[in-house]
């Protein structure tokens, strides 16, 4: 099953999204929060992200959800710390972080491949709420 990593500048946001996404997940699905700095402050930490990616991977790859552009910078920096094999199956979704994460988790729970999980996450851009 594709793992999902949630990279936010805020630890609370990443953990809260994870808790919401867990409600829609399959048992044993990997959803890892990588939010905030090591000291709990607002920011992103590329090393925390690379560790999260490693723990989210069960062999089928990892979809990474990010909040702001600078989370992309950290995530792409994190990619450089991964071995080639894992790096080839990790992808950032260009999607809203919360809506994308929940959509991604639902898609991954159905056993879909990474490309489909990313596509569904990105489709969350156009979901209407009201």
């Amino acid at each position, binding site marked *: 099953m594709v793992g999902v990593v949630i990279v936010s*500048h805020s630890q609370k946001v990443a953990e809260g999204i994870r808790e919401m996404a867990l409600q829609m997940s399959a048992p044993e699905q990997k959803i890892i929060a990588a939010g905030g*700095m*090591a000291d709990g*402050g*607002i*920011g*992103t*930490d*590329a*090393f925390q992200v690379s560790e999260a990616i490693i723990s989210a991977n069960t062999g089928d790859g990892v979809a990474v959800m990010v909040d*702001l*552009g*600078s989370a992309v*910078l*950290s995530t*792409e*920096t994190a990619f450089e710390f991964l071995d080639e094999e894992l790096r080839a199956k990790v992808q950032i979704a260009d999607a809203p972080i919360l809506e994308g994460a929940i959509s991604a988790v639902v898609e991954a729970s159905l056993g879909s491949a990474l490309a489909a999980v990313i596509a569904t996450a990105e489709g969350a851009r156009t979901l209407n709420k009201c």
Partner: protein
Amino acid sequence: MSGELYEVISAVGETIIGNRQMLTDLDAAIGDGDHGINMARGFEAVKAKLQTLETESDIGKVLKTVGMTLISSVGGAAGPLYGTAFLRAAVPSQGKTELDVETIGLMLEAAIAGIKERGKATTGEKTMLDALVPAYEAFQDGAKTGKSVIECLELACEAAQQGVEFTKTIIATKGRASYLGERSRGHQDPGATSSYIMLKALLEHLRRQ
């Protein structure tokens, strides 16, 4: 680590830490008001890390550690950007215990390429690149006419300062300041400013030797 190398990095770090408030104020105007806090936190972490590298004389290895430390401690966009810059600058300086004009030119080139790649940015987007790219070009102009390291860095600093001024005239199209669109004009970019003051600190330290 040679005393010289340690002192250069410390000088740069202390300057950033000393300009913490100024950088934060610049970022408060067009961003989230943390650039000084981020950079100072990063260089505090570097300072702590340098203690553990006392016996390391390889400039490349030290710069690699600086880059890794910035990546893990800065927090904002500047973390991966400057972190990558230091990691890339560590490549041409690997195995070296002293630097000449040519190597510094290669280091600047690699650092800028890293920032451009990481940030998917180019000059004219109101970022650190608007200080660093002209600084590199001026440095290379000096190098071509046989100038010394200090002379080349003088040219680079002057160009960087002009680059910082230039950032006041343009709108941000990368990073958080781009949220403000037209409203970002008239303010100088915090990242360009920190790049300039790091170069300046390096120059002033070398002049004091």
